[in-house]
């Protein structure tokens, strides 16, 4: 029995080394949850502003007189702030996790992961900037969802594989959104908010909660 356990342990070590050396596994589920919450907050502010500007039914009284350009800039600012907040909070939780697992945050696997995320995202960014210049604002939400989804699917080979399903979800939502342009808020909330939070909870439950229990029994 002892020899069997030894072999099993050895196989487990091999598996662990293969994963550790080829994948970025410190990505925390909490990062997904925090990014989702940022997206929800951002969507709320942006939709308030836009609604306000369209119908004038809000407390920001001065907004009614705002010019189109000003509203556009403000919404863009909200988008950028949301993106930065989501990035910062998810980085924070992943940083904490890498401390806990003892795997350095910046290594070959991290660079490989970031590069593979960047390819679809940068291509998407050009596409969206050009869409805005051509006043095709309707394409922004579906574009964000689709390119972000592609980035996640591409990234799944270099980090925890489950992120692929989050990617599929974003792509599907983005494509459906192309035919329901007016409901962009719903799709934005569902994709960047709800899907992120569900993914984060599932991942946290699957990996981090278990490792916490393991640590407790080891102590």
């Amino acid at each position, binding site marked *: *029995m002892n*020899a*069997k356990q030894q*072999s*099993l342990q*050895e*196989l487990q*070590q*091999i*598996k662990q*080394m*293969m994963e*550790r*050396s*080829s994948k970025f596994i410190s990505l925390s589920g909490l990062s997904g949850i925090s990014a989702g919450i940022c997206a929800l907050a951002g969507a709320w502010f942006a939709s308030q502003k836009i609604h306000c500007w369209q119908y004038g039914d809000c407390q920001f009284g001065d907004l009614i007189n705002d010019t189109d350009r000003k509203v556009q800039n403000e919404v863009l600012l909200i988008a950028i702030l949301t993106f930065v907040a989501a990035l910062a909070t998810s980085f924070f939780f992943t940083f904490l996790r890498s401390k806990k697992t*003892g795997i*350095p945050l910046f*290594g*070959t696997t991290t660079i490989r992961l970031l590069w593979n995320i960047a390819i679809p995202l940068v291509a998407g960014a050009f596409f969206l900037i050009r869409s805005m210049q051509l006043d095709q604002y309707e394409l922004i939400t579906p574009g964000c969802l689709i390119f972000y989804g592609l980035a996640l699917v591409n990234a799944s080979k270099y980090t925890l594989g489950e992120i692929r399903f989050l990617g599929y979800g974003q792509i599907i939502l983005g494509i459906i959104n192309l035919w329901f342009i007016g409901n962009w808020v719903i799709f934005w909330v569902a994709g960047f908010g709800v899907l992120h939070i569900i993914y984060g909870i599932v991942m946290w439950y699957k990996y981090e909660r278990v490792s916490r229990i393991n640590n407790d029994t080891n102590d």
Partner: protein
Amino acid sequence: MIQMINPIEKLNKTFDSRVRLGIMSTLMVNDKINFNDLKELIAVTDGNLASHIKSLEESGYIKVNKGFVGRKTNTTYAVTKAGEKAFQQHLGALEKMIKAMK
């Protein structure tokens, strides 16, 4: 336990160390890796890692490639065909052992 054939003889003695096992597992899934990354992954001292690398190199399981990144030397390691085969046989032997003892 008594009547089973002894699969242990197929287990490769070279991989009978946590460090060497770690080096081989890592190299199986990476085209190449440098000394510092390897050291961080396996969490060993320089000297310890160097001696295990040396023994794997002598067995012909890994190859060493000395190069430069800018002006700094950069030594990378990669698995050889023989190393790949030996490691897969080792895995197979482990698997058989576990199955035999069910």
